[in-house]
């Protein structure tokens, strides 16, 4: 009799060694004491593709080659683009200045003048001086003897002509015994007697014939005088015309001498010369204003216009120069970042001012937008802000398509306002736009906006991580050095840099990668500096000479502590027994699954109990999460894959009359992802084969229909989540986590987990198949089909298949009974 016990089954998969759980930095790869001795990193780290795209996009001058820098927040896209442009822009030409001036032909359409850099301010100054000159020289020209004499001559001419004509009539009247009288408002005729006007009585006593003669004489004289007086306004008009010509002649002498030098200076710029010519003519038309007393001028000269473009009340505003874009003392092409890309901030606006109770405007109130400021250079915009500002995106596209900046208010462009307003002449546009935004925005725009791909042809796709190697570790150390110097932080010693690299590799979720998330890295460095300073203060030192690994770790721990309230609450619920989770013992149809929760950038793993129940039934696998709409589509897909696996693997030639239900116990929120599908399958196989599973283990990994365990995300957080629970309850040495073998490369676990593993208190099992996982969870062999197509007895698979075969036979028997019953009604029914 053989009394020896059968040897205990040892699963094929062995737990990982502590060394495999984290890829440490090799101090030999970082040959420096502190980052003080490292050189700055001039280029983008790990962004070769993005750098190449920026260089291409900026270099190519063809239309539509604007850039879209895409990637998640915090990668340093804006800084990278800006730094590249700052290297390039100084060598490029300074763009011209642009001014708006009055349009003398069409006042509501101000003219745009292009001037060389800093020429705008010069023209403005010169025009101000010119107007001052007009105000002095024009009155001076009119305050001369020559002008006064010639004016008097013109005025006297008309007066004399009138007096002579009237005097002539008076003379002739006198010859007929009639006097011409000057009345308060005109003239009258009266017969005279001697030297006096004849009394009415005396007239009545005259013979009738004499009376008629006098009357007809008076009538004829009246008619003659009337004709004469009617001609007088015409004579006055003639005199006025002569006077105007005289004024113009005198003013021209003053204006020409003042403006001619300026016109000569701008002869090489025909547009400016033409404008000055128009100013010259306009001033001649408005000499009256310059001849007003100074106090009257001052009151009206610079008042805003009243009404739409009526400049009658502000005669001198029309000679102002509005320098909308000035490039004085600038070197190279402009680089503009518009933080608030509203419609007005982008294309410019026409402002109004309150005057006499109304809002008025003119060309001096035209304000430049970001497109003006960046014209001839580069404009960086945030895509998301741009798209959320009403009509800003449409305005930007319109400007890029037409290659000109047309300033119009939203009211005008939407045809909501029909009041007279300004239509400034468009300014030619030549610039590169760099939009910065998330990838989703880029792809959505590409898909839904047909113009987008025409206008933004260069995608600058920023990487989130880079390959990790000894060389890249050293480059990363130089990046730390660069940032520390830039932020005026204390230098990081080698140990601190190693800790930063390891933590940043963990952030990448991959031992072979390094995250290049700049914002987070900068935060970590600043926080480590803060911790070091706090420690130095506590030790009565002035400031830390260097930042060590403990400072970095303190910063990491503090950040986690700040964010971990929810994680701690969840674990507390488990420890107090309100969330049911076992970390020891065995149970059929129950397994510890692992999920990851993400809250405001902080991720943590948390175990969840997954259970399965089975019975003979109609072949339906019920996913309770899905039934109650708590399961997402990917989760549902994972569960349906289980059906495929079961029906393909076990009793393939028989019916599949299994009813099963699966649930995430005590889960009241949504469940998404398929990383729990292996755990669900283990629970299901346990329930079918009635094989208990070890509750000291937790499981993560998705499965396919062939039973291969596939990689999942967040493996570090999941392991640490179960570890934290086990540690709180006391590590037994039996506890551990099953992870997909393909996730081993992602392991960058915390030190406490690694220490527990090295002491044999916790285990990480890399499994490649469901069979491997079941063996670890049950301590039984999974079993492979032999030559006869059967699983060996007492294996897991044999138990599972046997149960399914039993169900299938019952199903067949039941179906046969129904057939018999149909054939022999009234006969005994066959029951299974």
């Amino acid at each position, binding site marked *: 009799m053989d009394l020896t016990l059968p040897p205990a089954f040892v699963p094929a998969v062995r737990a990982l060694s502590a060394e495999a759980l984290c890829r440490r930095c090799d101090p030999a790869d970082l040959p420096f004491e502190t980052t003080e001795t490292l050189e700055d990193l001039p280029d983008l780290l790990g962004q070769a593709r993005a750098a190449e795209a920026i260089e291409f996009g900026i270099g190519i001058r063809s239309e539509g080659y604007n850039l879209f820098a895409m990637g998640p927040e915090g990668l340093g896209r804006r800084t990278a683009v800006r730094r590249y442009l700052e290297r390039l822009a100084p060598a490029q030409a300074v763009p011209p200045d642009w001014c708006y001036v009055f349009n003398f032909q069409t006042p509501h359409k101000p003219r745009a003048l292009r001037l060389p850099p800093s020429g705008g301010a010069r023209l403005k100054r010169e025009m101000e001086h010119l107007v001052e000159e007009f105000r002095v020289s024009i009155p001076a020209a009119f305050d001369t003897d020559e002008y006064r004499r010639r004016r008097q001559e013109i005025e006297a001419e008309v007066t004399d002509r009138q007096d002579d004509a009237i005097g002539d009539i008076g003379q002739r009247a006198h010859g007929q015994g009639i006097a011409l*009288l000057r009345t*308060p408002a005109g003239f*009258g*005729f*009266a*017969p005279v007697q001697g030297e006096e006007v004849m009394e009415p009585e005396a007239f009545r006593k005259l013979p009738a014939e004499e009376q008629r003669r006098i*009357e007809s004489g008076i009538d004829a004289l*009246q008619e003659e005088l009337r*004709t004469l007086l*009617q001609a007088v306004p015409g004579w006055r008009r003639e005199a006025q015309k002569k006077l105007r010509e005289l004024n113009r002649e005198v003013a021209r002498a003053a204006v020409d001498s003042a403006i001619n030098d300026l016109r000569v200076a701008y002869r090489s710029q025909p547009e400016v010369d033409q404008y000055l010519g128009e100013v010259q003519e306009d001033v001649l038309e408005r000499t009256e204003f310059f001849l007003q007393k100074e106090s009257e001028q001052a009151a009206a000269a610079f008042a805003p216009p009243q009404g739409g473009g009526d400049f009658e009340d502000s005669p001198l505003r029309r000679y102002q120069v509005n320098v909308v874009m000035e490039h004085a003392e600038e070197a190279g092409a402009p680089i503009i970042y518009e933080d608030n890309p509203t419609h007005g901030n982008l294309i410019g606006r026409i402002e109004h001012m309150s005057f006499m109770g109304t809002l008025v405007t003119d060309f001096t109130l035209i304000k430049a937008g970001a497109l003006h400021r960046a014209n001839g250079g580069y404009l960086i915009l945030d895509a998301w802000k741009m798209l959320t500002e009403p009509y800003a995106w449409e305005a930007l596209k319109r400007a890029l398509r037409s290659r000109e900046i047309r300033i119009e208010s939203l009211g005008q462009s939407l045809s909501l306002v029909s009041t007279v307003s300004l239509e400034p002449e468009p300014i030619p546009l030549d610039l590169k736009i760099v939009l910065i935004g998330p990838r989703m925005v880029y792809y959505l725009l590409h898909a839904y906006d047909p113009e987008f791909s025409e206008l933004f042809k260069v995608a600058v796709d920023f990487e989130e991580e880079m390959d990790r190697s000894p060389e890249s570790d050293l480059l990363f150390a130089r990046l730390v050095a660069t940032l520390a110097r830039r932020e005026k932080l204390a230098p990081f010693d080698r140990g601190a840099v190693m800790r930063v690299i390891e933590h940043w590799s963990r952030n990448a979720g991959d031992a072979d990668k390094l995250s290049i998330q700049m914002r987070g890295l900068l935060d970590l460095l600043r926080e480590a500096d803060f911790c070091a300073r706090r420690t130095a203060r506590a030790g009565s030192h002035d400031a830390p000479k260097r930042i060590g690994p403990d400072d970095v770790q303190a910063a990491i721990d503090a950040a986690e502590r700040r964010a971990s309230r929810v994680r701690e609450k969840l674990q507390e619920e488990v420890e107090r027994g309100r969330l049911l989770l076992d970390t020891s013992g065995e149970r059929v149809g129950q397994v510890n699954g692992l999920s990851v929760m993400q809250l405001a950038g902080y991720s943590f793993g948390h175990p969840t109990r997954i259970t399965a129940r089975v019975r003979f039934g109609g072949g339906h696998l019920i996913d309770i999460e899905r039934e109650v709409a708590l399961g997402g589509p990917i989760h549902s897909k994972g569960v349906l894959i289980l059906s495929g696996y079961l029906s393909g693997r076990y009793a393939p030639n028989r019916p599949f009359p299994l009813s099963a239900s699966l649930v995430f116990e005590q889960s009241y929120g949504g469940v998404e992802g398929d990383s729990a599908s292996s755990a669900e399958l283990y629970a299901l196989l346990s329930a079918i084969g009635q094989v208990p599973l070890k509750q000291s283990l937790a499981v993560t990994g998705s499965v396919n229909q062939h039973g291969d365990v596939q990689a999942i995300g967040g493996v570090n957080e999941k392991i640490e989540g179960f570890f934290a629970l086990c540690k709180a309850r006391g590590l037994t040495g039996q506890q551990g986590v099953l992870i997909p073998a393909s996730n081993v490369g992602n392991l960058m676990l915390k030190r406490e987990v690694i220490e527990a593993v090295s002491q044999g208190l916790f285990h990480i099992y890399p499994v490649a198949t469901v069979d491997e996982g079941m063996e670890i969870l049950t301590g039984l062999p999974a079993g492979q089909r032999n030559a006869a197509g059967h699983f060996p007895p007492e294996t897991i698979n044999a138990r599972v298949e046997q149960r399914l075969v039993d169900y299938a036979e019952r199903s067949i028997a039941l179906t046969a009974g129904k057939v018999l019953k149909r054939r022999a009604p009234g006969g005994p029914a066959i029951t299974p």
Partner: protein
Amino acid sequence: MTSRRIAVRVNDGDEAREALGVAIRLAQARGTEIVGIFVEDVRLLRWAASPFAREIGTVTAQPRPRDPAAMQRALRLLAEEARETFARRLAGTSVQWSFRVVSGGDPEALEALETELLFVKTPAGWRLIGD
């Protein structure tokens, strides 16, 4: 005879304006009072009562009938206007002044002028009659 007042005609017209300016300077120099005289043209009143009283407007060039009452009113308004202008001219000076309307057909009024120095323009220039 320096205490006698200087009388000057203030009917509308360039000549009257010029006369007033000279008379003011004269009155300041002599320290005497100045009298503004507005002479009503009696011929106009007589004409307004005649059947030919049709006034042809300087601007409108249209004849319109006039009557003595309307003419009287028009002359009164002219006199008032002349008084205001006279007062304005003298407002800024220290010269004492008075104003009088004289009818060309009023012998008493003309007689009163005899007690004053009459400032008129003669072919030889401005003269003070009665000095």
